[in-house]
């Protein structure tokens, strides 16, 4: 296997992480905890397949996927911002809800409890526009956060909402937009995954949303560093796939890498990971 093929494989694995991590960074920078990325991805993946199945067009499917993620994000946003619910609890509930609702609709629409029928996706490999979108997603979020007025407001809201409000930033509106944007972005990760595999399967995101959460934290809430973390985790996964059956190192230990690195980063062994100051503060 040549280098080019290996790079391709790393990128294919990384794209869902990149989308979700880009979304995670923007929501967390606005002060809203993003344990929901997994649910957004799953909802996006399912809606994308439904849209593609009924329209025959993956573009329509991708837009449906964005809508699916945004609906779940709206639930998270309304509960967390309007009702000041505990964001960790709501986040876990949204993930549970996403698993349940995709299963119920899978049964209702396609009469199956495991997978949808096959649909046509975008062109494979480098012809897939979502692959390119995914690769630029974290730089784009970096641009939004650090070079636009909206980004400045997002960061101010996440660090010190009272101060932001006192200079006229509509704190809650900024948070709603950041969360919806994170839902749309993370959903695209699910869309890419589902269209790449040409079908939806039950719980197909399989923890990828949490790897993205790990990347956000390991990347210390910076979009570019989070993107680099996604590529690192994807590279580790690629190594794992190639080592399978080699008995050099058990695959389970490579699986652990993102999680262990995140714990190490949080414990401050290699550059302390410090969260936005107002992250998760319900009364904000």
């Amino acid at each position: 296997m040549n280098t080019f093929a290996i790079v391709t494989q790393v990128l294919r694995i990384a794209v869902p992480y990149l989308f979700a991590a880009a979304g995670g960074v923007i929501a967390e920078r606005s002060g809203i905890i993003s344990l929901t990325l997994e649910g957004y991805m799953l909802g996006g993946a399912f809606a994308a397949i439904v849209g593609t199945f009924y329209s025959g067009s993956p573009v329509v499917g991708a837009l449906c996927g964005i809508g699916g993620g945004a609906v779940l994000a709206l639930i998270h946003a309304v509960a967390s911002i309007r009702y000041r619910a505990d964001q960790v609890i709501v986040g876990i509930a949204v993930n549970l809800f996403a698993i349940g609702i995709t299963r119920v609709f899978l049964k209702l629409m396609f009469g199956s409890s495991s997978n949808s029928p096959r649909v046509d996706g975008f062109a494979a490999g480098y012809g897939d526009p979502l692959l390119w979108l995914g690769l630029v997603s974290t730089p784009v979020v970096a641009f939004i956060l650090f070079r636009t007025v909206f980004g400045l407001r997002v960061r101010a809201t996440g660090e010190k909402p009272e101060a932001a409000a006192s200079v006229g930033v509509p704190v809650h509106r900024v948070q709603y937009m950041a969360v919806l944007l994170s839902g749309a972005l993370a959903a695209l990760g699910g869309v890419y995954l589902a269209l790449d595999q040409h079908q939806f399967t039950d719980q197909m995101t399989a923890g990828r949303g949490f790897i993205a959460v790990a990347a956000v934290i390991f990347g210390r809430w910076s979009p570019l560093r989070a993107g680099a973390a996604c590529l690192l985790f994807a590279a580790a996964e690629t190594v794992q796939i190639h080592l399978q059956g080699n008995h050099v190192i058990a695959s389970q230990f490579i699986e652990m890498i993102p999680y262990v690195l995140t714990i190490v980063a949080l414990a401050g062994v290699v550059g302390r990971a410090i969260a936005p100051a107002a992250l998760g503060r319900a009364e904000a």
Partner: protein
Amino acid sequence: MTAAQREKMEEALFPPVVAILIAFVAGDIIMLSFNQSPFVVWRLLLEGTWGNAYGFGQVLYKATTLSFTGMAVAFAYRAGLFNIGGEGQLAAGGLAAALVGFALPVGFPALLAILLGCLGAAAAGGVVGAVPGYLRVRFGAHEVITTIMLNFVVLALLNWFIATRLRVPETLHTPEIHAGAISRLSAVLPAFHGSAANLSVIVALLTAIAMWYYMFRTRGGYELRAVGLQPDAAEYGGISVGRVLFSAMTVSGVIAGLGGINFVLGYKYYYEDGFAGGTGFLGIAVALVGRNNPFGILLAALFFATLSQGGLAVNAFVPKQMVDVLQGVVIIAIAASVPEVQRILLGSRRRPLAPTSLDAAPAAAEPPAAAV
């Protein structure tokens, strides 16, 4: 009942009631979309769970593990900590119970074997819980993230151990234990025949009583709640906050780990990879609905167990996955209504003098007179 007590009751009871009503409506919608009569399906759901001994036994069985994971979440929560690691702690406890039962010789005194199995489960859960506790106290690493990440690490470790060291070929479970089996409830009450309910439920009840006593009648429990309510004030009052946080997280892990006996010692008599299957996460919902009170948690565990067993009972009419949706709806509704109810009750008592939320903040930020 005094007015203060009534208010406290209202604050505790309103959110779960509202949440359950919302879940009913959500359930109705799902049932109607499958062209089923909600009335018929809800009745079937109740009949299949509380209507016969087998169904009720299954509910009891499921409620047992859920009450352990729920109490684990509540114990940490009372200290102001969020333990999302129940999944990994439960699984580790289950494996440890199986290893103890496996190491003991056939014919080992039953009661002692069960006790050792429980100790093993508790110790393993405690170790898994102590890690995020230590990371929090020593490095300030937030336990929400570390417990989530540790779940994946622990489950991968257990998976590796089972896959490479100790499994029956072609399966994902260990061989059966030699000693330490907890007898089924049907051995005492024959009507429960065939259901998985076992005497672990008594361990759960005892744990609830012990937790209530510790929490509300001992100095340690007082310190724990003080740290949860106001860590700075607790520190000033002479409580070692770090020590309390570490031990709360460890005990939380102990309780979750102990839950492993229900499946391993009480039901299957072996450890199986993935047996926790979301019960650890659902413990968060159980603690939330049970309002972090051990006895409330027992009731909440029964509620969630009824939903999950009821889903199986109505599967022919509405897919059982409906209950996943309902669980999500209940949790979101209750999490959203707790602060709301508190706000309303607080508002009915006294009007806040200053804007307390940012809803009101922009209006309050009037330009200084000099600027006009």
